[in-house]
């Protein structure tokens, strides 16, 4: 099932409008607050990055299209806070209790910010299945380009690659599988590869015969050719 966020190759979006190199990082103050609130809530530990990406993708196509970038972030965050029972619907309506929350002790403190941002959240893992593909090998991207575990679930396999022939460029290591991790099904780490596709294998009217697109794809997204 294609969702609105999976827009690679789509027609009709018009020109890209560059910005000055020295344009403000945050166009509006609330953009900065939206980013900061989202990162701070992530530190509560109630979800992972795949769950939060999926929350944005689950906005209705209508909302996804009409919301600006940080509106998507904040809407998805509100949805997630209720879904994970951190907040209630009454809270969002301003009718909730004002007492300290049970998770308050986990709240990100100013003095911890630098450490948390510097530490990051690596996605590589020990173990998992052994790599079955080697650099140079021809592969095909899975058809359909859907989550194989959960109907309509999160996946990082873009629709535009479905069924296309590509070539393994490099092995990145073994990484957490978003299709599983976004749904509480565990990290299910798998070998992750950079796979190169000729533009002419992806598009009916490529701009140039030698152009390529490279995607990072998990082992279960690929079939041998």
């Amino acid at each position, binding site marked *: 099932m294609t969702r609105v966020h*999976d*827009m*690679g190759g*789509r027609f009709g979006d*018009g*020109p*890209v*409008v*560059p*910005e*000055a*190199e020295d344009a403000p*990082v*945050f166009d509006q103050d*609330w953009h900065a607050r*939206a*980013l*900061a*609130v989202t*990162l*701070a*809530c992530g530190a509560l530990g109630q979800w992972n990055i795949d769950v939060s990406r999926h929350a944005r993708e689950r*906005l209705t196509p209508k909302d996804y299209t009409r919301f600006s970038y940080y*509106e998507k972030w*904040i809407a998805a965050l*509100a*949805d997630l806070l*209720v*879904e994970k029972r*951190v*907040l209630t619907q009454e*809270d*969002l309506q301003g009718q909730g*209790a004002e007492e300290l929350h049970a998770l308050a002790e986990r*709240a990100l*403190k*100013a003095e*911890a*910010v*630098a450490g*948390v*941002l510097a*530490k*990051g*959240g*690596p996605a590589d893992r020990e173990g998992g299945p052994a790599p079955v593909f080697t650099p140079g090998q021809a592969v095909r991207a899975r058809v359909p380009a859907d989550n194989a*575990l*959960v109907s*309509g*679930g999160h996946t*990082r396999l873009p629709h*535009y690659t479905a069924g296309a022939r590509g070539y393994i460029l490099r092995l*990145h290591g073994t990484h957490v599988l978003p299709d599983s991790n976004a749904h509480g099904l565990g990290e299910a780490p798998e070998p*992750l590869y950079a796979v*190169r596709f000729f*533009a002419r294998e992806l598009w009916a009217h490529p701009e*140039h015969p030698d*152009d390529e*697109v490279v*995607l990072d794809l998990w082992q279960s997204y690929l079939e041998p050719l």
Partner: protein
Amino acid sequence: MIDGIMKHDWTEPAAAAQHEAMPHDDPNHPHALLPPDPALRVKALETILTQKGLIDPAALDEIIDTYQNRIGPQNGARVVAKAWSDPEFKAALLADADPVLADLGYYGRQGEHMVVVENTPAQHNMVVCTLCSCYPWPLLGIPPGWYKSDAYRARAVREPRKVLADFGVSLPEDTAVRVWDSTAEVRYLVLPMQPEGTEGLSEEDLAALVTRDSMIGTGLAKAPGEAPA
């Protein structure tokens, strides 16, 4: 389909009944309970979370200060300038970027797994995230608006040369374009070609020629004396 996975808490009968009674345009999503104006919506959520002790406004200020003032394309520009100046550094950076960047202190959120790709006369590299907005934060900071735009996400993979034209960039016909769609947690930085006649410049002077766009691949490094983009 795994039972229960796609069932949202707010579709429980009591919650659904409550929603039906409310005049919101999208009854299935709690965000509609917040004020519709974006600035007010963020403020409302921040206030609710602060009252419950779930977020610390001082921590928010710290996060914003980090990405507004401390982490940005100046980091990536230093790496590029060093690579132009030091062949051994460049070779190590292209072979395995993570330890090299960690040594310089450029590690962290959204830059845990870095790959640096080199532009050459034969190949121009360009980075996009068609599915969301993945971007190497420790080296480039928060992505510019155009990088997150529908137009860039939709078009960069299908017609990169036309997108480059939107940036005023035209490549020779014998230069192949390789577009990197950041679909996993690996983040890509483009090492632009060093402008001619800049050999021997200090790393500081070289860094001043490296634009953010040149490290995404939608621009080229500036020639000395060229006006800022």
